[in-house]
């Protein structure tokens, strides 16, 4: 019985990893190809250190990615999705622009993350907040 339980847990972990179910924020295993759990928190922390003010982020649903959270940064709408691979994150940049919609915005992959931001309330007319959002991602470029 005990072995059965161990096998089930192992199988579940193996199935979850490739899907990028990065709910375990803060536990980046660092293995190549593994989901970068916690990288979303790293990004948010980088923004905070850069002087930006992220709101609490909450799970949100979009068509092009399964693991996404949405919130605001300095009153700019921001979407952070974690994709299973860097290539998929890169491929999600265009759908990210569709999410931006009728607004000034960005959509950029940073590792396995897709960060999209839309200035729907025209809170950032000079684009300086959007620029910081992008520049502070540079290490993951």
């Amino acid at each position, binding site marked *: 019985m005990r072995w059965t339980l161990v096998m089930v847990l192992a199988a579940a972990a193996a199935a979850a990893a490739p899907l990028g179910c990065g709910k375990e924020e803060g536990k980046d295993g660092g293995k190549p190809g593994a989901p970068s759990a916690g990288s979303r928190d790293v990004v948010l922390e980088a923004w905070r250190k850069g002087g930006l003010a992220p709101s609490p982020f909450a799970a949100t649903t979009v*068509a092009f990615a399964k693991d996404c959270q949405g919130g605001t940064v300095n009153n700019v709408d921001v979407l952070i999705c974690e994709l299973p691979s860097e290539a998929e994150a890169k491929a999600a940049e*265009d*759908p990210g*622009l*569709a999410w*931006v*919609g*009728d*607004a*000034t*915005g*960005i*959509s*950029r992959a940073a590792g396995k993350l897709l960060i999209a931001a839309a200035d729907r309330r025209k809170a950032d*007319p*000079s*684009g*300086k907040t*959007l*620029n910081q959002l*992008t*520049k502070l991602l540079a290490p993951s470029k």
Partner: protein
Amino acid sequence: MRIFFLTVAALAVMAATAFAAGKQVKYLGIHPIAKANGGGFCYIEGPHVHLYAADKVQYRDHRGYQHFVGDPVAYGYDGPKHVYKGHHPIHVDVVVGDSEPDTEFCYLDGPHYHYFAPPEGPEFKVAGGAYFFVAEPPKAYVEARPVMIEINAIYRPLVYVRPVVTVDAPIGWIGARAEFAAPVVVAPVVGVDARVVVPVPSVRVNIGVGIGVPGVIIHDHRHGRGHGHGKHKKWK
């Protein structure tokens, strides 16, 4: 039934994407915002989108992104800037930091600013803190110039603090070479101070500026003057 709903959902997503893509214009790098679109300056350095189009005069297409190649100071830009005098290439790939070679040409007459410095190399010489293009321009530059130089009309009425360069141009400077000289055009100068600055689109001006001036003076002063830009792909 399930397939029907999936198909409808897929079509809806595709339609939404197409709608957004149709209205959005991709930009790369900082750029002015036209008054009709709110005015001011956009400081987003990386790829981004707006809902307004770029004009064909001050922007160049780089991988599907619009890249501003004009004088940002004319539009209120407040950041690092570099002084150039006369026409010169712009290595857009270096400016934006990617690997797709793309060299455009700036047709700004006379002293002007860009927010980027040229890459180190023999094609530019620095005199008095200003960059002068001294290499052989490509054929494409010469061919397009008669049309592109008309772009100066956009900047001519703009009033802003411009650099003034009064120094002997380095030997080989494109502005002093008769074969690349622009037709003589005496444009009106819109001055806001007492000094007279001769419009640059003139062979006489290009030759005359700085002659006999032992030192270098680059200082700001307000007046109107023409500037322009043109485009040449991958001539390097």
